[in-house]
């Protein structure tokens, strides 16, 4: 406690030099928390949206289904087992049939994934009620990204071509009944949603599905043809990509932190050189060399505590403001295929704040200790003369 008191006194006494170091270090604090909270917010929003729009509480895949291999779709369909069909009737699971197809907006061919989904499902946020109005033309809904890519709008009709289960081509017009806004590219880009019953009939895959999305009340069913995939499994790739983003963002703030730590290191080296007489005086007054090393280490480390306080001073209002208005994302940010909304609400976890404080305090203390070790090798008689080079 005594060393801390003396260190703080010395730091405050050092004036502008201290405050410059503290300011740069406080920027590191704020940047680290800002970047991580933004990415955590993105992660949370992406997971929430993906669960709400695509994966529910998990999925049951037909055993041949591989979302990364479109050719698997030819075989990846099977009759829904009766136990699952019962649950589907109650709305506890939502069967989805997927097949490859093509649309011809303005005469140009575009390959798509044609997905059939029950029109009365409530489990996913997809506006499938818009598919229930079955006139002569099969209704279809598409997402904003698909609409932008194909220039298709609500009310447009477009030619759809597909192959049935025997490989025979067929074609008909579909009517776009809704273009829905969403943050999940994986249910949007290159996809057209139509009623499940229509797709089953069009492909001759009566009562068949490729996968089933399950809800909270889903009762597990054991069937060799169907495999349950948990939320963790389904989100694993997305989480890995977001972690990678976190890693690349870390380069920026670690660079800033590095500059701040270099400034502290430099200050410490200069300080030990310039304050030799003071060091000698401390020893003459009865401090052990270890106590003097500790004092200088705490002095350097205390920069980080001041920085935390200063960072809190301007960082907390900034974070509260950002939490209210969100961080706007530029248009096209989601074109990489990751779920991202137009604005991200940052998430400030206790772990993030405590972890950041520990990281900065610990690294500032380490860089302060390194030059301070030199004091232990100083001869106090030389230090008192200020002769050490």
């Amino acid at each position, binding site marked *: 406690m*005594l060393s801390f*008191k*003396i260190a703080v*006194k*010395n730091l*405050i*006494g*050092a004036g502008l030099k201290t405050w410059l170091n503290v300011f740069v270090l406080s920027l590191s604090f704020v940047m680290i928390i800002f970047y991580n909270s933004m990415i955590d917010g993105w992660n949370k929003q992406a997971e929430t949206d993906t669960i709400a729009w695509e994966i529910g509480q998990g999925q049951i895949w037909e055993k041949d289904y591989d979302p990364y291999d479109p050719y698997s779709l030819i075989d990846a369909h099977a009759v829904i087992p009766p136990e699952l069909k019962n649950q589907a009737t109650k709305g506890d699971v939502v069967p989805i049939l997927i097949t490859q197809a093509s649309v011809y907006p303005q005469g140009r061919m575009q390959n798509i994934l044609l997905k059939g989904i029950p029109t009365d499902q409530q489990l996913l946020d997809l506006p499938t009620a818009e598919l229930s109005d079955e006139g002569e033309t099969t209704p279809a809904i598409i997402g904003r990204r698909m609409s932008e890519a194909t220039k298709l709008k609500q009310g447009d009709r477009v030619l759809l071509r597909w192959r049935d289960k025997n490989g025979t081509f067929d074609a008909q017009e579909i009517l776009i009944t809704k273009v829905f806004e969403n943050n999940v590219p994986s249910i949007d880009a290159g996809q057209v949603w139509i009623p499940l019953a229509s797709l089953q009939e069009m492909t001759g895959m009566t009562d068949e599905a490729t996968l089933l999305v399950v809800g909270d009340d889903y009762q597990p069913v054991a069937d060799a043809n169907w495999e349950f995939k948990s939320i963790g499994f389904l989100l694993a790739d997305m989480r890995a990509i977001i972690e990678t983003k976190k890693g690349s963002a870390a380069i920026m703030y670690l660079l800033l932190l590095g500059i701040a730590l270099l400034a502290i290191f430099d200050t410490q080296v200069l300080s030990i050189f310039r304050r030799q*007489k*003071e060091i*000698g*005086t401390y*020893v*003459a*007054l*009865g*401090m*052990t*060399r*270890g*106590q003097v090393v500790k004092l200088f280490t705490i002095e350097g480390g205390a920069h980080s505590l001041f920085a935390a306080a200063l960072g809190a001073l301007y960082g907390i209002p900034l974070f509260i403001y950002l939490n209210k208005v969100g961080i706007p994302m530029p248009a096209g940010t989601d074109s990489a295929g990751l779920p991202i909304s137009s604005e991200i609400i940052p998430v400030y976890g206790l772990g993030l704040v405590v972890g950041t404080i520990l990281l900065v305090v610990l690294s500032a203390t380490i860089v302060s200790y390194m030059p301070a070790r030199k004091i232990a090798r100083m*001869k*106090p*008689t030389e230090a*008192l003369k200020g002769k050490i080079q």
Partner: protein
Amino acid sequence: MNHASIISIQHMTKRFPVGKGEFTALNDINLEFGEGEFAGLVGPSGSGKTTLLNIIGSLDTPSEGTATVMGQDISTLSHKASALLRNQHIGFIFQSYNLLPVYTVFENVEFALLLQNRSASERKKAVLDALEWVGLTDKMTSKPAMLSGGEGQRVAIARAMVKRPKILLADEPSANLDAQNSHQILKTMKALNRELKTTFIFSTHDEKVMQYLDRIISLEDGKVVSDVEKAAAAL
């Protein structure tokens, strides 16, 4: 010698490495200092005065022989033990005062007591007493940069004396002071020596300081060439 011995130096030699060879700063020194002495080491620059003070103050160790201070052999003390010895029994006064620049006069004097873990009320009383001895109670909130040379040295005396050490070592205390200030601080130190029975050992070649000393030990090339007590010299 009438005083009970608190410093005993026996056949002490101190050598420093210089290039590939060695320089002998002190050569076979034998000295005793008693409680309450007001003694000075005099001699030209390089005669070994400061080296001897440093060894007595346990800031350095002898190359040969022994230096026993307050019953403790300096050569065998660990860093911690020598720090404790300085903390509890030895005060230092330096030529350039060595005040801590970011502290006020009060805090500079208080510093020595902080290291002794004294209570706040105890520290306050002791600091005020010490500042009164040196006549600086009106400057207690000033920073060292705002003080004159004489005031700075008086703060250094207060800092050295506030813990009531048994031994006070003063290295050229008047070197940066004018005649008036030199006399003033020497009178202060003499009065403290009488009042507190602290042993004062000076390193000096200042005639003004020598006037006040009760014992003058002359060093030359690291050897004691004379050791004269004023009372004996007067006879």
